[in-house]
């Protein structure tokens, strides 16, 4: 615990120093990034220690603000979330140190590093806070810091717009959290989590209210549908290493909050689990579908964050159902799958965003239809990105598969769920996950294919350059992590055991038994993964042997008889995704523009597809407009006429007099 606090302090101090040293960019960069890396390293050590010891260390000091106390603790759950936070933040800092040089002449980067390290520190504080006020303060600092990171490039009006959307969304979400913590602390008369836990569970109605408040409040940060609208706006416009941190880690803090809330609340009734599963399925499927429809690389990735958060949520929901159905295996599998996916998603989403950043950095565009052929120009990035893509699609032998596999097992439920009423909600998860997997495959074959393969579609893409070591290294590390967690999942899930036992409250005997049940298939998975890789290598060697000594020619791609193919004839992302989108047409609000070729010698023809987010178009904008009109209807109150103003006073006075005389005097 102390170590972690040291890490927090280190982050904060280094950030501040970087801000002070803003005048000397080099120094400020070293201070900021270096401090970030050092702090994150410390944090990782602390977290791993806590996980292996499976212990809880708490500290409590009094803090002179109303209802506040500086009580923090590092229990397995917190420690588990510290892993991705520190891992991703550290790596992103290394990456960012190089990435930001592009802005050298336009921006002072001291402030950036301040907020970056502040973000990391505040996330750690949120994870460890054990007092409502402390939690809220850290939470809001986190949101603000990330906001200022998002609007780093404030020359662009779009960036500011997106940032504002984000700030407002997160602020509204926080409003629900305020309510949540206050209501939660009512029985205890204190906002310390310990006291709340001691005070015993609230009645069912209050618990339900609390659950909803937490779901909305934390769900907004996590980006659950339909609370996700800010996410695809804000994540793309931020500098890429910030996008990585936000998309891979900060949304997870929302998940952490949800889990923490569930621990503080009484055991969940089945309907909570059902609700989570429902939301998870919606977020997952719609998330991936919208992702499929995007042309902006980073926006696409942002929507995939929504999808993966959906997967995590339905894993959690599965766990809750397991608990309430007395089905320990389902509970353990669901929760551990979800939490494992938290880590995995952090790794591959971080990797993907860093990759996207490298692409944007090298080509100056994020528009898929302008990219292509980058795997020749930046092979390492391409390789790493490919690993991330395979991982996010959830294919063996990588980590994405391992965690989804656990959720699948939980969904099948074994002998535990014989009653249809219980089994059906769980079984719903299966086709949903399958569909998500399939669609994710569509989406990422599209991304990898259009960005890295084929011929470049524009000069920018053709002129792309290697990103350099500082930017490549973090990606390679993350890729290695994805592979490692895919090949040896059981090794990681072992660390998860104490965490899961916190979430599913069951006696250790049954619990450990179930954990063993969950472990067996994982060992097999790791065996298969290694076999798969071995086979691939063997075949590669075989091929080499076969081709050795034979002539291996190169020529143009077979154009099916057409001899003058150009890069612009390639399939674009729009055309690749079109069949799928057309099939799911009812779910989209699509604007298609088609300039059909005409005549014998058509001059120009074009096809493009814009999809807008229905949640935003149909839910939020109308609501805001309505409120706006409602309030604007009162603006005649202040038209500048003095005697009208005094009339208000007179009317108020007379009204009050009459009211008083009528009501209070018999």
């Amino acid at each position, binding site marked *: 615990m102390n170590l972690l606090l040291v890490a927090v302090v280190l982050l904060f101090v280094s950030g501040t120093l970087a801000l002070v040293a803003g005048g000397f960019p080099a120094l400020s960069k070293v201070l900021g990034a270096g401090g970030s890396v050092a702090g994150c390293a410390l944090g990782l050590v602390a977290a791993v220690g806590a996980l292996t010891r499976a212990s809880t260390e708490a500290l409590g000091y009094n803090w002179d603000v109303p209802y506040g106390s500086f009580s923090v603790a590092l229990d397995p759950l917190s420690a588990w979330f510290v892993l991705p936070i520190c891992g991703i933040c550290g790596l992103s800092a290394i990456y960012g140190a190089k990435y930001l040089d592009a802005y050298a002449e336009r921006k002072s980067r001291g402030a950036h590093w301040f907020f970056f390290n502040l973000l990391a520190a505040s996330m750690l504080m949120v994870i460890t806070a054990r007092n409502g006020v402390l939690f809220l303060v850290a939470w809001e600092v986190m949101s603000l810091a990330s906001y200022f990171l998002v609007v780093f490039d404030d020359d662009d009006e779009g960036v500011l717009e997106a940032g504002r959307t984000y700030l407002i969304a997160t602020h509204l979400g926080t409003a629900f959290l305020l309510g949540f913590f206050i209501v939660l602390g009512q029985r205890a008369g204190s906002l310390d989590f310990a006291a709340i836990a001691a005070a015993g569970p609230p009645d069912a109605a209050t618990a339900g209210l609390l659950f909803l408040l937490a779901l909305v409040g934390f769900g907004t940060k996590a980006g659950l549908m339909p609370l996700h609208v800010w996410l695809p706006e804000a994540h793309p416009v931020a500098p890429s290493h910030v996008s990585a941190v936000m998309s891979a880690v900060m949304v997870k803090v929302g998940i952490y909050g949800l889990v923490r809330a569930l621990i503080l609340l009484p055991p969940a009734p089945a309907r909570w689990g059902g609700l989570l599963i429902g939301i998870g399925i919606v977020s997952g499927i719609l998330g991936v579908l919208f992702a499929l429809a995007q042309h902006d690389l980073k926006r696409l990735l942002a929507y995939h964050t929504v999808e993966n958060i959906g997967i995590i949520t339905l894993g959690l929901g599965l766990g809750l159902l397991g608990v309430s159905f007395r089905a320990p295996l389902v509970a353990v599998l669901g929760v551990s799958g979800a939490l494992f996916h938290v880590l995995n998603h952090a790794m591959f989403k971080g990797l993907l965003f860093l990759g996207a950043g490298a692409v944007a950095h090298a080509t100056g565009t994020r528009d898929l239809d302008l990219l292509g*052929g980058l*795997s020749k120009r930046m092979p390492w990035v391409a390789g790493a990105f*490919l690993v991330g893509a*395979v991982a996010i*699609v*959830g*294919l*063996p032998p990588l980590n994405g*598969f391992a965690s989804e*596999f656990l959720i699948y*097992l939980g969904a*099948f439920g*074994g002998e535990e769920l014989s009653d*249809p009423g219980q*089994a*059906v909600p769980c*079984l719903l998860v*299966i*086709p949903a996950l*399958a*569909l998500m*997997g*399939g669609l994710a*495959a*569509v989406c*990422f*074959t*599209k991304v*990898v*294919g259009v960005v890295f*393969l*084929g*011929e470049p579609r524009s000069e920018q893409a053709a002129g792309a350059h290697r990103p350099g070591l500082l930017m490549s290294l973090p990606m390679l590390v993350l890729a290695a992590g994805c592979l490692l967690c895919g090949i040896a999942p059981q090794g990681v899930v072992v660390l998860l055991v104490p965490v899961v036992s916190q979430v599913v409250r069951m006696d250790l005997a049954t619990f450990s038994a179930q954990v063993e049940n969950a472990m067996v298939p994982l060992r*097999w*998975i790791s065996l*298969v993964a290694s*076999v*798969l890789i071995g*086979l*691939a290598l063997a*075949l590669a060697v*075989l*091929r080499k042997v*076969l*081709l050795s000594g*034979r*002539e*291996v*020619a190169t*020529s143009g*791609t*077979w154009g*099916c008889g057409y001899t003058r*193919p150009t*890069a612009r004839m*390639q*399939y674009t992302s729009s055309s*690749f995704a079109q*069949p*799928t989108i057309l099939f799911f047409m009812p779910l989209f609000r699509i604007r298609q523009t088609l300039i059909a070729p005409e005549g014998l010698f058509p001059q120009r023809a074009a096809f493009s597809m814009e999809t807008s987010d229905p949640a935003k178009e149909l839910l939020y904008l109308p609501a805001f407009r309505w409120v706006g009109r409602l309030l604007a209807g009162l603006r005649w109150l202040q038209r500048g006429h003095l005697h009208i103003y005094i009339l208000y006073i007179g009317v108020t006075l007379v009204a009050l007099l009459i009211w008083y005389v009528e009501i209070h005097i018999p």
Partner: protein
Amino acid sequence: MDIGSFVPLVLALTVAPLFVGVINRTKAVFAGRVGPPLFQIYYDLRKLLGKGAVYSRTTTWVFRAGPIISLSAVLVAATIIPFGSWAAPLRFPGDLVLFVYLLGLARVFTVLAALDTGSSFEGMGASREVLYSALAEPALILGLAAIARKTNSLSLSEMHQGLGSLWAESGLVPVLVVVALIVVLLTENSRIPVDDPNTHLELTMIHEVMVLDHGGPDFAFIMYAAALKLWVLGTLSVDMLLPARSGVVLVDAVVALAGMFGLAALVGIVESTMARLRLNRVPQLLVGATMISALALVLVYGEAIK
């Protein structure tokens, strides 16, 4: 694990190409031609393995990695499938999920290899392939889920054994599942009515167009992988359909083999009697298959209740 459990694998590795041969022969018969010899695929494979290769300038290592990874994925998938009364060498709770995702892996790399060529035709095929398989996956996994719930086991081998024991009263469920499985099989292996393996117009192709640029050993890998995939999925259906146990291992094996070639013939017949569907009809077929699987799952519970 016993030696017997390796028989299905060996069988798959050796007999899979023959299965394709049988299909082609059946089609030839229906078309009134002599058709290629049954072992044609073996000849092709040998010839291709002996050849050099020509690569497009556009392509990168992804193009070369495609066939390799696809083949190895399918190979691993083959080690999960039981045959006759032999359990698979690789069996553990949840291996059915692994099976589905291995096929997915194979597909993804085929598609990527296709996109690596930068040819618009191959892109076209790829974009169709991914949609269809995305829709096929739920059908497949739901069908397997139904059987899994029925036999209370998450391993294909155990499911197979389990079905055998309750074949008598298992009733409609396996049949429905098999129907769904066959649709999936036709899709995954791009047979008629989903795709026409020996059409000659690239615009209409799905699978074949994706491998246009491959040659030599790579193409051999692809052909072999395709054959294996066909065999594996076929075995799965046959296992579901004929889980009868005579108690004599060999008899079961023969029954299963017979089933396989029956299936091959069936596919051939379908191909030579049906026309391929319009591209935009295919998704409906797949959704239909998913519904059938779902129905099977519901039935499982229906039986559980009564």
